[in-house]
């Protein structure tokens, strides 16, 4: 059976989630796993939601750590930190990875209103992630996409060639014409062979297929941006509607590539 894994999701609290029928907007590990079960997804790389910034994501990272213990292989921790917290951010990353088994670092430029060009801020965390042997996911929000362009990710990636970097949401390309970087994604990925990308928020099938053909199927991961977006949709899109791909290629995008990247047991 192929493994189905989501490379981009969130847990914790966000009052907006009540609008989805999530009670009190609180999504804990048990509820998250029920959501995975309902969608036929084996596991997900899950980060604290942005609302956790008030306590530097500590409360939600603790909840994720607990979820990883109770649902091993299904809740996969994605450590989110605030670069402007400097030494505290580095300490949090080391603790979460070395002691609790988190598998990747999320740098979200909206968290501290920075850009990936601010290398003095970003590089220490990237270097630490490299030393810990984990990939780095670089993301932004709709309104701050310009702070996290694929070219900026590539600039960092070429300087840390042994670390894998994930360009979240395909660099915001393909989101109903959102002014991101569909033209920029492929050149950036070609320039930095240690980059991959994930499909969160992207539902333009042609854009995904074009990217796969340009950079290779092993460099595209399925992501959902759940629960802000329904966790099941990328799986349906990839497995049923990206029909230029063969079955084996679909399975790589839908989970195999992430399992390989995170060294998960097959």
């Amino acid at each position, binding site marked *: 059976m192929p493994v189905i894994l989501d490379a981009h999701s969130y847990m914790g609290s966000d009052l907006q989630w009540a609008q989805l029928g999530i009670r009190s907007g609180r999504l804990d590990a048990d509820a998250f796993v029920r959501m995975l079960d309902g969608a036929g997804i084996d596991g997900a790389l899950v980060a604290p939601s942005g609302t956790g910034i008030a306590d530097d994501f500590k409360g939600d990272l603790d909840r994720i750590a607990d979820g990883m213990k109770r649902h091993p292989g299904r809740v996969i921790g994605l450590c989110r930190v605030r670069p402007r917290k400097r030494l505290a951010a580095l300490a949090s990353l080391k603790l979460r990875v070395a002691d609790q088994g988190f598998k990747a670092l999320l740098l979200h430029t909206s968290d501290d209103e920075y850009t990936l060009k601010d290398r003095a801020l970003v590089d220490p965390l990237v270097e630490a992630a490299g030393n810990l042997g984990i990939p780095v996911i670089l993301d932004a929000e709709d309104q701050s996409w310009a702070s996290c362009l694929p070219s900026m990710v590539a600039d960092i990636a070429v300087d840390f060639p042994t670390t894998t970097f994930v360009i979240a949401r395909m660099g915001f390309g393909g989101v109903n014409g959102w002014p991101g970087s569909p033209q920029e994604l492929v050149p950036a990925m070609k320039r930095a062979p240690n980059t991959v990308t994930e499909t969160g928020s992207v539902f333009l099938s042609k854009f995904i297929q074009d990217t796969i053909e340009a950079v290779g199927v092993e460099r595209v991961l399925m992501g959902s941006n759940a*629960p802000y977006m329904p966790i*099941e949709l990328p799986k349906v899109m990839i497995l049923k*509607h990206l*029909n230029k791909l063969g079955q084996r290629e679909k399975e790589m995008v839908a989970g195999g590539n992430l399992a390989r990247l995170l060294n998960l047991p097959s």
Partner: protein
Amino acid sequence: MASLVYDAHAYLGNSPGWAQMGLPVPLDGDGWVQMMDRSGVHGALVAPPGVGREQFFRPDMDRIAAAIKKYPGRIFGMCRVRPRSGREAVDELRRRVEEQGFSALKMNSLDDSYRFDDRKLLEPIIEAGARLGILLYFHTGDRHGETCQPKMIGDIAVDYPETNFNIGHVGYPGYTDQIIPTLKRAPNAHVETAGVFLPILLQNVVDEVGATRILIGSNGPNSAIELPPVMVNRYMNKLIPEEKALITGGNFRRVLKLDGRAADRRSR
């Protein structure tokens, strides 16, 4: 019996990029019905894709006309016109609706480099659409979103209170904040969800103006047509089943007057 699912925004015709999804190109009525059957969708309102702009969309509108004829009740046509062609655009709309059974008008400001607040340019085609009693669909959001803002559609809709308007893409991205004020101001305006997989945004719209004002759309086959009903039925869990049924199909039947048409036919 489960209610039927209808897609309020999709494309049929000759768009070479669709081969990237393993679809036949051109995608005709047969291909579309097969795709709907695979996806649990009963019917779709389809327009010619943008690549046909130079030919005024006519070859693809001919394909749509053939599909309407072959698959009544499953394929519905949107007539896409370029308003700068003036009288020709109006005549084309009338012919497609009266002779070929098209059900709606589609306007995208990118097609002729115009703006939705250019009322002098748009008035003849809107008036013709209103007289024909069809749904008037307007694209919003996107890179050219400044030219096609939801509030501009609201301004038109209040002047044609008997006509149904559909605001494509819920103003996403960039203009979603105009949606609720526009829908409140123009009770004959609706939104459709193509490309918008943001259930929180859609639930906010339902909470403010009710479930009768949203129709699912897919942008298919650019995005998979199966996704919007999955989103509404399985991930918008504040909605009651009746509201889900309205959004996934009931509202489509109402704004396209499908039940009225059937009744009309029976009474003749």
